[in-house]
């Protein structure tokens, strides 16, 4: 991969109705990285993602995606929103939803090409939903629907895949399949994932960021005591309970 960073944030600030949500966030993510973003509810995880997507404009600071302003870089991004259980009565088939990911590559006012159809088919096969292509999206189970939304993100052949809690409504079996898929995909693309699952973070990601208005970035994918305390503001041993020990590096005794 080349030298242009996948994501670059410099002193980014954002607030909703004067309530600060993101404060002075700076970090650089190289291409090919696999970033996990942790943080409490309302800590600004989704806001951070929307800033990267150009759906929100920072009040201060600068964001570059592959060296470009977010709006210009959109065609390189595959995006999975947090909520996928909306508009359940909407008449749309699985295939129609998956091929929507091809919009980034297609022209306004022109129908989808044969290539678009093939890419959508490939993406649906990747998530095991090709057999359901004629089904109405609203009639699927939550996990099946999530897979179709992931297929939609994949269909765009993104350079960066941004996933907002991709496993919130899938069954545990598919969840591990999914992470294996992401690991495979990570060979060709940068992945940014928002999750609550610290166990997952420890097994799959390369870098970790914790956000609770301010952001702590850790390139080696280790979750430090400081990060947990800063983000969740609760004693570390509570959070760590029941998690694989290798999540945490050996703690050097504090003076």
């Amino acid at each position, binding site marked *: 991969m080349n030298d242009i960073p996948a994501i670059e944030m410099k002193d980014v600030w954002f607030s909703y109705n004067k309530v600060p949500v993101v404060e002075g966030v700076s970090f650089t993510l190289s291409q090919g990285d696999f970033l996990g973003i942790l943080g409490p509810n309302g800590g600004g995880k989704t806001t951070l993602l929307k800033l990267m997507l*150009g759906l929100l404009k920072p009040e201060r600071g600068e964001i570059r995606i592959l060296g470009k302003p977010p709006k210009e870089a959109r065609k390189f991004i595959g995006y999975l929103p947090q909520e996928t259980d909306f508009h359940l009565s*909407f008449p749309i088939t699985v295939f129609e939803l998956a091929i*929507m990911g091809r919009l980034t590559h297609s022209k306004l006012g022109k129908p989808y090409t044969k290539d678009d159809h093939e890419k959508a088919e490939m993406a649906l096969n990747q998530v095991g939903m090709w057999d359901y292509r004629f089904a109405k999206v609203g009639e699927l189970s939550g996990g099946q629907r999530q897979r179709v939304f992931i297929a939609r993100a994949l269909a*765009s052949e993104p350079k960066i895949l941004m996933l907002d809690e991709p496993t919130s409504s899938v069954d545990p079996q598919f969840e591990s399949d999914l992470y294996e898929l992401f690991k495979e995909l990570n060979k060709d693309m940068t992945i940014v994932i928002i999750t609550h699952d610290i166990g997952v973070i420890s097994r799959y990601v390369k870098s970790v960021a914790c956000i609770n208005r301010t952001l702590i970035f850790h390139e080696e994918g280790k979750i430090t005591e400081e990060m947990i305390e800063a983000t969740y503001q609760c004693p570390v041993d509570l959070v760590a309970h029941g998690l694989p020990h290798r999540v945490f590096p050996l703690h050097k005794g504090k003076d």
Partner: protein
Amino acid sequence: MWEALHFEFMRHALAAGVLVSISCGIIGVLVVVNRIAMISGGIAHASYGGIGIAVFAGIAPFGGAAGFAVFMGLLMGWISLKQRDRSDAVIGALWAIGMAIGILFIDLSPGYNVDLMSYLFGSILAVGKPELWFMLVIDLLTLAAVILFYKELLAMSYDEEFAEVTGVPVRALYFLLLTLTSFTIVMLIRVVGLILVIALLTIPPYISEQFTSTLGKMMGFSILLSIFFITSGLWISYSFNLSSGASIILVAGAAFFLSHILRKV
């Protein structure tokens, strides 16, 4: 019933019914899935302001209504984008302001007595040839827009945020939709009147949604339902000497309740 077709006004009325159904079915579906029924109701009522201004200025009332409807529709759309959480209040205000403008201008028009009722409840039996041409033009515009931008409209209607991320010009499409909605509403005012427009716009899509798996099929089914409601309503109004607009809406209303019961089962 067939002897009614000897009358030219009846043939015109049936032609108008079919023509308005095409735009009504297509735009109605987009109104329902984009949840802009409130704006549509606002446009329908506010367009009365255009009728008043046109009467005062001595130009064709439906030309005035069309221009004013588009203006008010875009204004409502724009303000509700700016103030999302107060959009219904803003639409409600513009809804009434538009009507009040119309009433005052008609008061100010000397010696002209407008048949208010025909605008409120429609007058499909008085549709003339020029209006049929106007309806045909609106239909062709609507069809062209929907065929051309089908994949973008589908993306915007289903998942606006994603559509925006993929570079679909959602703002421009939204205002295009409001413009087409305004023209469609003005056509429908001729058929069922501005008070009843909203029912003909929303009932066929509401029923169709249950039986269709794509937006295109939903539009097709809505067009057929709309034709059925208008022609059977017209037939009832002719046979029993009742108001055409209200008869059409009550046929649609009966189907609405029937489908609602079926939906529950």
